């Protein structure tokens, strides 16, 4: 089978050679796998494109591990919900990789309603020398066979195939906004606006609802869940964020239903749910010392800054645990906050992403930009955090030096292997030569999705339908 060529070629370092822009090509999620060898992107058309890092070669040391297309497949198709007369979009909302355990790679991809487990495997040998069929596949006339032979595996051109191994469907009434794989590698959660469901990777016809914030009377609905993630090491802990700007850290051992109505119920038996070992008593086997308690993380509102948009801009669009499991990062419309898991009353650090927009909230409300959901990401050592902004800008904050930088992902402003020039937005008064004024920012160019290599300083940034991969300077 000939290799499928992806029309979205990437220049590995800084530029993209993408000439056309159809809506289906809009990238909706990007994710490195746990080794950083693979990078997956999902788009609005339901496709997943996986890039693989080239092995470094001595002959061309300057081409330090470029990413090339490895596999492309159609993950989700558009569906029609006949009951509600509504289309179910095929857009891939999230992709999460499973840590690699064998030769094949596994990832979970989800659209609004259905999560799928995909297996990506390589085939570089094929059997040749069948008795009953010839090389073209045509069946041979058995009467013509005079001798038998044993088929032999022969090398062939590398073929990468993706197969859907599991389909987890019919568990969500509302739109799935996130998925997260548990550190036990056996379960995962899928989250929609009102519920979080826990699945076992092997079982597709059953899921357990562990968070449900749907009120009995829908009229009383004032808050939705915006994101949820498992703790990176503690398989009983997960966090979910809300549209009101709060984060709840939940412990599944406390109750079967982890929401405010069942906060301190007696321990529920989760053995059926978590097929992990039975060493649940006292948290043994999970590296947890103390008893977990559910916590609500919320910063009290500053009454002086209250406006009609306060709630909307406080809505958390992304929540990410740090790799070391000690911190939580949240992204709301204007800021990124780092929370210490031990301190719920206020964030440890707050970084202004684009505070110059604070005076423009009314316009941003009018053009709907105020509802944009930006993601945020940690670097491998949890020392730098990154998030996107408008005008194809993205921001990085160094937590130790407290320095920050604004960079731009655009073809015009970057040349291959050139160092990205820091950008600056001018907020008023005199505009310097290289600065850009707030009123000139292009709000249709937004960087919502970014990902950081787990160990190295390589980042992937999705700018509408273009994928940019940036690497640390090579000496």
């Amino acid at each position, binding site marked *: 089978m000939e290799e499928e060529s992806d029309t979205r070629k990437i220049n590995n370092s800084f530029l993209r050679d993408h000439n056309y822009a159809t809506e289906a090509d809009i990238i909706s999620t990007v994710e490195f796998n746990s080794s950083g060898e693979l990078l997956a992107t999902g788009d609005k058309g339901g496709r997943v494109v996986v890039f693989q890092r080239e092995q470094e070669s001595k002959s061309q040391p300057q081409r330090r591990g470029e990413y090339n297309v490895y596999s492309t497949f159609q993950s989700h198709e558009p569906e029609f919900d006949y*009951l*509600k*007369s*509504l*289309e*179910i*979009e095929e857009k891939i909302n999230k992709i999460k990789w499973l840590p690699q355990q064998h030769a094949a790679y596994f990832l979970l991809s989800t659209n*609004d309603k259905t999560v799928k487990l995909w297996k990506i495997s390589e085939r570089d040998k094929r059997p040749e020398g069948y008795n009953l069929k010839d090389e073209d596949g045509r069946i041979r006339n058995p009467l013509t066979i005079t001798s038998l032979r044993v088929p032999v595996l022969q090398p062939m051109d590398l073929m990468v195939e993706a197969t859907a191994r599991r389909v987890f469907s019919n568990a969500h*009434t*509302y*739109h799935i906004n996130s998925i997260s794989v548990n550190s036990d590698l056996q379960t995962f959660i899928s989250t929609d*606006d*009102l519920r979080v469901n826990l699945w076992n990777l092997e079982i597709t016809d059953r899921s357990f609802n562990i968070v449900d914030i749907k009120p009995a*009377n*829908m*009229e*009383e*609905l*004032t*808050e*939705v869940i*915006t994101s949820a993630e498992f703790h990176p090491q503690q398989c009983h802990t997960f966090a979910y964020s809300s*549209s009101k700007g709060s984060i709840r850290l939940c412990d599944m051992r406390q109750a079967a239903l982890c929401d405010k109505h069942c906060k301190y119920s007696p321990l529920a038996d989760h053995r059926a749910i978590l097929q992990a070992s039975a060493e649940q008593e006292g948290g043994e086997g999970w590296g947890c010392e103390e008893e977990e308690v559910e916590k609500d993380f919320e910063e009290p509102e500053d009454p002086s800054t209250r406006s*009609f*948009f306060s*709630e*909307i801009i406080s*809505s958390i669009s992304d929540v990410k645990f740090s790799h070391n499991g000690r911190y939580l990062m949240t992204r709301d419309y204007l800021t990124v906050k780092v929370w210490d898991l031990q301190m719920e009353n206020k964030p440890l650090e707050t970084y202004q992403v684009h505070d110059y*927009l604070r*005076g*423009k909230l*009314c*316009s*941003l*409300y*009018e*053009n*709907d930009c105020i*509802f944009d959901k930006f993601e945020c990401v940690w670097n491998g050592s949890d020392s730098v955090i990154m998030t996107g902004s408008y005008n194809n800008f993205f921001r990085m904050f160094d937590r130790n030096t407290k320095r920050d930088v604004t960079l731009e992902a655009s073809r015009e402003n970057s040349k291959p292997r050139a160092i990205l020039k820091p950008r600056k937005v001018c907020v008023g008064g005199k505009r310097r030569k290289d600065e*850009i*004024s*707030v*009123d*000139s*920012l*292009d*709000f*249709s*160019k937004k960087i919502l999705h970014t990902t950081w290599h787990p160990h190295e300083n390589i980042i992937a940034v999705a700018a509408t339908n273009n994928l940019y991969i940036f690497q640390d300077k090579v000496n």
Partner: protein
Amino acid sequence: MLGRGVKRKWSCLADLEAEALPAEKQKNGEEGPGDEGGFHVAPSESDMSHLQQRQLVLGLCLEKLQHYQAGVELSLRRSVLLINTLRQIQEDMQSDGVETCTSETLLNDVNADSCLLRDDVREDMPVTCPGCSEGDGDDLPLSPPLSPEFPSQEANSSADQPRSLPPATISSFSDAVNAMGYLSDLALDDIFEDIDTSMYETSDLPSAWAAGSLWPISVSLWADEDVKMRPSSHASAGSLQSCLMDLNELDHIMEILVKS
């Protein structure tokens, strides 16, 4: 929403600021908005008065709630945030109380549907739309049932009688609600069981009602079986009263529609 090279007219802001800040726009004019085909934000809005901003946000909010794409499910998060903003404006208006009836500029540019947002207003304060304001001075209480108002001169007769909504609003609301699909997980039987279908025999009804839409009675955006009359004392139960109509009002509205 994304204008392809079309310069977006920030009409609301432009109108409000035209008198106030002509200079501001000139200053920022060197890289004019809309030049490159993307879209940009209007210049400084900080000088908009609180009332002006509230009025603007109110209009936008209602516009966004009503605008939906047929066949595409609405985002629950977005709708919840919009409704919460609406509630906040409602509370703000309530607390502003006295000023509202005197200010004519309040609702000038807002489309008539904003009249929906009237309730919990004290009896001595007729909050009305500009169209109603002339000659309505003594036409008071919004006292129960809570009702949306409408600049209709004919409905002046009785203070107790609710004003009618423009038919277009009724059907667009119910269509909007259908599209939102909030009720997807409810058993359809529950929804239909306490609906009095006798009123659907009227041929004048907008088609959306007659089709047995999921949300036939209330124009609340995601409410379900609540079709009973709501006395004003329950107004602050946290639900969006301004969008509710009850059966009696519906009857009355139909009368008005049939007459006109």
